[in-house]
């Protein structure tokens, strides 16, 4: 192997834009297949909104995977808890939720989302201390503990709220669609997309512009070396775990509003999607997670429209295809 000397010019680092182009290519490819431009635009908007919601739920999990090497199969519990907590705020303020004023609606929605994040984050603290801490570095036990935790959380929700599905209607001002020509884009999907983008930008700013972010990125890559530099990474673990749990709670509220219902096992359908996103994005990669979430949502929406029978397995097929192309995910961050 030829070794560069200090005086040699460094090859310019290549920007890896292929994964970024993938959703764009997929979207363009489906234009002729879908046929109608308005249907295609509606499907694309739906994909973006769904992708952003999945991203919000999965972003915490990918950091937990990458930084802590923890397989948290109980991540879905934070989603369900977040959604249920929101119902506690929505129920007494049902009139405000149905008021025909965006500001009045947001005055309920925002505290509900914040409370859900706070409760999910606090639950994350308990889960990390009680379930995860004793099994760091032991993947099999992590799977058993967190799966057990998920079952306990679901059954607790059943015990507290009952087995029935709880309706969670969209606030009045978020119902309906924006009409652009013959294209209808649901208002809530626009809001979900904007929130998802805001979360993505906020995470990117923290990761790339702050020392805390440097520590997280360094920790995802090599925890041991971060400790050898004198940083107590366990505290960072806890902070990331709580943040990831809080984001899952936020995602739970958004998903519940999207589906307009809450039930204790709502996380079951999402857990598979979230794990697919985390795996195809590359463990620990927020950028990969973002693109992966959009891809999963696109495949679900375009695939569901074009080949409904394939909808059930479309995400697994997507994962197989991505891993055949890039076995460590779209953006490999960790060496695990």
């Amino acid at each position: 192997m030829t070794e560069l000397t200090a005086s040699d010019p460094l090859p310019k680092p290549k920007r890896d834009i292929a994964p970024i182009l993938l959703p764009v290519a997929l979207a363009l490819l489906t234009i002729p297949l879908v046929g109608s431009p308005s249907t295609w635009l509606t499907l694309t908007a739906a994909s973006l909104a769904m992708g952003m919601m999945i991203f919000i739920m999965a972003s915490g999990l990918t950091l937990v995977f990458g930084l802590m090497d923890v397989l948290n199969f109980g991540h879905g519990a934070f989603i369900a808890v977040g959604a249920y907590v929101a119902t506690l705020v929505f129920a007494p303020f049902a009139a405000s939720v149905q008021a025909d004023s965006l500001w009045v609606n947001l005055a309920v929605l925002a505290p509900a989302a914040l409370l859900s994040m706070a409760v999910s984050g606090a639950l994350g603290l308990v889960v990390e201390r009680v379930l995860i801490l004793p099994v760091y570095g032991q993947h099999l036990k992590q799977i058993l503990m967190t799966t057990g935790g998920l079952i306990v959380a679901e059954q607790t929700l059943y015990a507290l709220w009952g087995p029935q599905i709880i309706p969670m209607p969209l606030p009045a001002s978020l119902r309906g669609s924006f009409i652009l020509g013959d294209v209808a884009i649901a208002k809530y999907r626009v809001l979900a997309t904007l929130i998802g983008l805001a979360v993505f930008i906020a995470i990117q700013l923290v990761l790339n512009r702050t020392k805390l972010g440097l520590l997280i990125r360094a920790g995802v890559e090599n925890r041991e070396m971060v400790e050898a530099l004198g940083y107590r990474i366990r505290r960072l673990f806890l902070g990331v775990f709580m943040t990831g749990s809080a984001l899952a709670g936020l995602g739970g509220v958004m998903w519940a509003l999207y589906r307009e219902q809450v039930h204790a096992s709502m996380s079951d359908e999402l857990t598979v999607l979230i794990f697919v996103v985390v795996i195809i994005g590359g463990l620990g990669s927020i950028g990969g997670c973002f693109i992966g979430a959009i891809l999963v949502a696109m495949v679900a929406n375009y695939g569901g429209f074009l080949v409904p029978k394939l909808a059930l397995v479309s995400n697994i097929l997507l994962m197989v295809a991505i891993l055949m192309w890039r076995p460590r995910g779209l953006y490999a961050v960790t060496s695990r």
Partner: protein
Amino acid sequence: MSDLLKLSGVHTHIGRYHILQGIDLAVPEGQVTMLLGRNGAGKTTTLRTIMGLWQASSGEITMSGERIESRATPDIARLGVGYVPESMAVFSDLTVKENLVLAARDAEMDDKQLEWIFGFFPALRRFWLSRAGSLSGGQKQMLSIARAIIEPRKLLLIDEPTKGLAPAIVGALIECLKEIKRKGATILLVEQNFFAARELGDTVLVMDNGTIVHRGAMAALAADVPLQERLLGLSLEAHQ
């Protein structure tokens, strides 16, 4: 000269393997102590045990008279121990600058110290904002050492810095380590390259099968070819 670091009867187990089998060693302050030995002798395990990355199963490790064998790695690092692992372990997703910002911990990077580092490793200045992952092996090693010395450290633990590097870069690294030594640093240096060891070492410890089998002056070992052959299975001439 007092001993900055002392290990007494240190045993380390990794899983069911008994790697360190009662290590006794002392690292005098202001000196470069070479830790030599064949592959698998336990040199890297010794450094990792000192750093707290692997827990000693028994024995005492003291730094400036303070017991550290039960302390967590970050606490040991904050006592003033810099660690350069064999794998270099630069954060490849971070830039050169970001790697050094993290290494400076709570302090701002000292411009004078930075200029001093750039004097040895000009490539780091040139690639200041480049991702560390895109550096060559030699440049990564420079960054790894720079990270350990960006702040004054009481003790540097350096694991095979010349491993796999081109001769021209090995020469630059040796010069840098000599300069660090001249500034009075205390270094425990694991090295397979006997030429580098001879150039840098004041004292030498030779390990075999998890124990120290020889200790003495580096100059004495360098001058005693039969002893080198017996301890290390090499002759100095072969490395010249």
